[in-house]
């Protein structure tokens, strides 16, 4: 597992070289996830939710976790949508 400090260093290095840096992380609520350690250091957190699968309880936990971490921007990407506009 990459330590949070090491990960941060890599992010710093890449962000200095690139216009956009996307960090793909496992689930925020997973026990082994490192997402929480860097969530406060990135510009935006894109939370991916699957329509018809993601539960409100999980969403509430994510919201509270990101709020506690001091995340600056949170945005959602909704996937598995049957009809656009739903």
């Amino acid at each position: 597992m990459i330590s949070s400090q090491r990960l941060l260093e890599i992010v710093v290095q890449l962000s200095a070289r690139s216009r956009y840096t996307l960090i793909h992380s496992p689930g925020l609520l997973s026990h082994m996830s490192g997402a929480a350690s860097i969530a406060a250091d990135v510009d935006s957190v894109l939370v991916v939710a699957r329509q018809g699968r993601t539960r409100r309880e999980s969403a509430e936990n994510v919201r509270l976790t990101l709020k506690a971490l001091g995340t600056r921007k949170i945005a959602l990407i909704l996937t598995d949508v049957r009809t656009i506009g739903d």
Partner: protein
Amino acid sequence: MAETSPPLRQFLRFAKRQAWLIALVPVLTVAASAFIVQREASVYRASMGIGVAESGARPPLGSPALMQTMKNILKSNVVAQGVVTQLGLPISSAALSKKIRVQYQPDSSVLNVSYDSTDKSEALSVVGQTGVEFQRVAHERLGVSDSFKRPGPLLIVASVVDPPHLEAGRVSPQPKQTLAFAAILGLALGLILAYARESLDDRIRSRDEAEKAFGAPVVGVLPRGFSHQPSTNGPPQPRQEAQQALQTLCANLEAASSGDDGSTFLVTSPRAVVTTFSASTQTSVGRPSIACWESRHEHTGFSRSSRTESLRRLRSRRSRSLARPRTARRMTPLELGLAAACCCCRRARPLPTERR
């Protein structure tokens, strides 16, 4: 945040989601009713009319009290016992009395006597014998005559004016009415079950629900089965149906980055590992993968600074990166959106880790 949908649209979405349950319950109800109706024996009804009047009365019609008295006699145990004895029916007099129906209209002097049975001849016999027993009892106990020409001492006349006969068709079952009622009942039951199922289910069903639950705006909506065509030359191209969704996501991500260089996005989900992200890095639990686009040629040396220093650099990277000359082409919004979309969809193919 998205505006709340109108109630009708919400209901239609609910009906669409639970369509199978709403349709299944009426189908099962109708099927069960059809099975029961098919197995149920046909019931026929025999009836007759008994006119009751007070001879010499003005008007010469049966009063309500007299009609009720005659009805009670018809439903009495002595009449039923006579019918059972005479016809040799295998039921008790009390049971027969309950099965004999006696009705009359408020302004009428005619008692309608009816009896239902699966045997047409039995129904006819019971009604006919009931009339005979009624007239016998009324005559013996009350002196009621069956002829207006020879009224009894009480001047009461009770005569069969409508002889016993079978009513047309069968009384039950009525397949059309039964199946229609079963369909309506099944539909109502299906809606109730669907509503209960929907209420107990806490999964996020719509964009509105997602925004409320996460407390954040939706910047992208990707359709089910979103993927892009593999391409050996140049960036992968999204499929036709996903183009619009992707463009919206791109525009929103551009806005989220505020047009600044060096924007960092953490793509995550509540629990699951969402997808593979890059060709060289397979995402695993606890091991985030990183990709960047629009890289510059000059290499930035690896920093071994402390976390505090890293943070400081991360915070100030925009001003430094803007000052540097750009040597690679800018990443198009479509590529940014596609990269983010690849993070979201399991079926998405991996993207190059770095484009130079």
